[in-house]
């Protein structure tokens, strides 16, 4: 997936200012940054939901699986009915087979008949991701997938996502949890005020804090401290 010089404006405000991103098969890319940095806007453009005002995205719409921040599910339908509906809308030849496969994948086969509204936030997020995967995407876009999950649910979520990446799916996710980005993101894209500040592995960011920001103490502490020091050094 290649995105080049993306620009998006909301009225007079520039939400994205020439952001570029590339990701190879099986790569896990974390998009991080403060509130209003443009993370959701970037993912929405990559998903084809938003049109950029300038720039290009080289990925077929059918190759992208989109998992919005808030689960896009019908809470009055059962787990199976949700999966079946989206499999049918995806035009699968065997929607029941596809739904069955996703039920196994997200570990909710036993709870297929339960109404989604009665499931925990973590389980809803798993179905949310499973629906995103129904299009059998080569690229999976996750917008803050771990928000509202407890540590156990979060661990299961990342285990699930990592397995997808290991299978060759390109995963791009946004998060506010810096530790999570360091742990699971093979690469980090740091955005602030719609601008791309950094693109590389977490260790490179620590190195930049050490060398460019001249804050070796911050670089040696937890990753969140190093990240804040980097933002401060870049004027944010």
């Amino acid at each position, binding site marked *: 997936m290649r995105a080049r010089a993306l620009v998006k404006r*909301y009225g007079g405000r520039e939400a994205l200012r020439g952001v570029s991103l590339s990701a190879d098969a099986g790569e896990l890319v974390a998009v991080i940054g403060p509130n209003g940095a443009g993370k*959701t*806007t970037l993912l*929405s453009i990559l*998903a*084809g*939901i*938003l049109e950029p005002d300038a720039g290009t995205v080289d990925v077929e*719409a*059918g190759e992208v699986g*989109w998992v*919005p921040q*808030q*689960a*896009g*599910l*019908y*809470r*009055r*339908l059962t787990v199976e*009915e949700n999966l079946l*509906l*989206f499999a*049918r*809308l*995806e035009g699968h030849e065997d929607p029941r087979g596809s739904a069955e496969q996703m039920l196994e994948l997200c570990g909710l086969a036993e709870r297929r008949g339960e*109404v989604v509204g009665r499931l925990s936030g973590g389980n809803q997020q798993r179905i949310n991701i499973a*629906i995103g995967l129904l*299009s059998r995407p080569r690229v999976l876009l996750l917008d803050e997938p771990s928000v509202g999950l407890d540590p156990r649910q979060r661990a299961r979520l990342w285990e699930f996502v990592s397995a997808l990446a290991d299978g060759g799916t390109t995963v791009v996710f946004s998060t506010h949890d810096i530790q999570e980005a360091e742990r699971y993101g093979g690469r980090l894209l740091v955005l602030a005020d719609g601008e791309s500040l950094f693109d590389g592995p977490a260790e490179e960011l620590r190195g930049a804090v050490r060398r460019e920001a001249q804050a070796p103490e911050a670089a040696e502490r937890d990753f969140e401290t190093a990240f804040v020091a980097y933002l401060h050094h870049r004027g944010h």
Partner: protein
Amino acid sequence: MRWLLLKDLQILRRSPLQAALLVAYPILIAVLVGFAISRDPGEPRVAFLNEVPADSRISVGGEQLPSSNVNARICRKVECVDVADREEAEARVSSGDVLAALILPANLVDQINSLSTLTPGVPEVEVLVNEEDPVKAGLVSDRIDALLAQANLLLARRIAREGSRYLELVIDGGKLSLIGQEFPILGLRASARILAALEPALEPSLRPALRQVTKFAGEARENLDVAGPLLDRLAQPIRVEKVAVGGSAPPLEIFAIAVAATLTLAFVTVLLVAGSLALEREENAFPRLAGRLVSPTALLGEKVLLGVAVGFAVTLLLLGGLAIFVPLQWDRIGLWLVAILVGAGALSAAGAALGAVAREVRAVSLLAFMVTLPIAFLSLVPSGAVGATLYDAIRIVTALFPFKPALQAITGALDSAGDGIGLPLVHLAALAVVYGAIARLALRRFSAV
């Protein structure tokens, strides 16, 4: 699109209370409004105190009416509640148990009887009303005015009839009953005849004078012949002849059924479509659907189809139920179906436009109620009921929403003698296109994340 439709029906099935409310509430409202429009308001309860002595008789022109006859005439128009005295009448009016109290004073019959004498009195009745409620006060005032008008008309006719009888006596002669005795009256006709017979026996010099008297008797008779019908007309000088020059009003029960059906159709379609569309965004499914899987236009089409299908079924159910009580012309069912389908389409498009404006189902439901209910009631305001300028404004407002044309189409479809349904259908089709375009534009605004 069919999978989305199936999904919406599944969601409706999963929400039995919501589905029941969606269907039951409009039907309840529709039936109540229908009954309110079609039914007579009923006889108002009036406390009745008759202080007239039981042996009194109303006597007009020698004909006597028993006082019970008066009671019966009054109580035919209102529901009479007999009271013992004035205090009880006042208490019942104050408590709201009765709408008003009618008191016939003891001297009423004497006063009425005096109308045919040389010293006529003024018969009066007393009415007690409770005017705490302006609507009720107006209703009571109208009822009492109508009652008095009928009573006055009855007496005037009897007095006029008596006057005519006296005129006939003057013209043709006869017997006059007075104080239990009968007096012979010669009459103008017989007088002229006698005078004419006397003429040959008179001296020639006296004959011209006698001819003048005979001529006068003849002229007086002819003129009094004309006065008789005039006296009859005095009782009711103006008669009303109603001629319908505009529109052809359907029978009241047909109109009431059309109102009930249109109200049901409007509420079911507008609420369902608006709520269902808002639900797509409330559940965050809209970006997922409209981004790639379904075009916004197809999504709108599915919602309109949902509204048409459910609205059509519920309205037909309502008509079928009402047909048990009121005979409907089943041979016109083809027109019903067309009117309901096109009406449902336009109302669903309006619902889609409302649903596309707001994000939450609750906000959209409130908006749909706030728009549909007043528009429905404004659509029922007849011309002449309000000022001309206000009515013009109401016509414009109601023309912008599909309720009134849907009502016209359904009324026309139900009533074989009514106006055609062509124009309302064209109106509905145009509104469907406009509201569809508004909904599409509004959805584009919401496609941004």
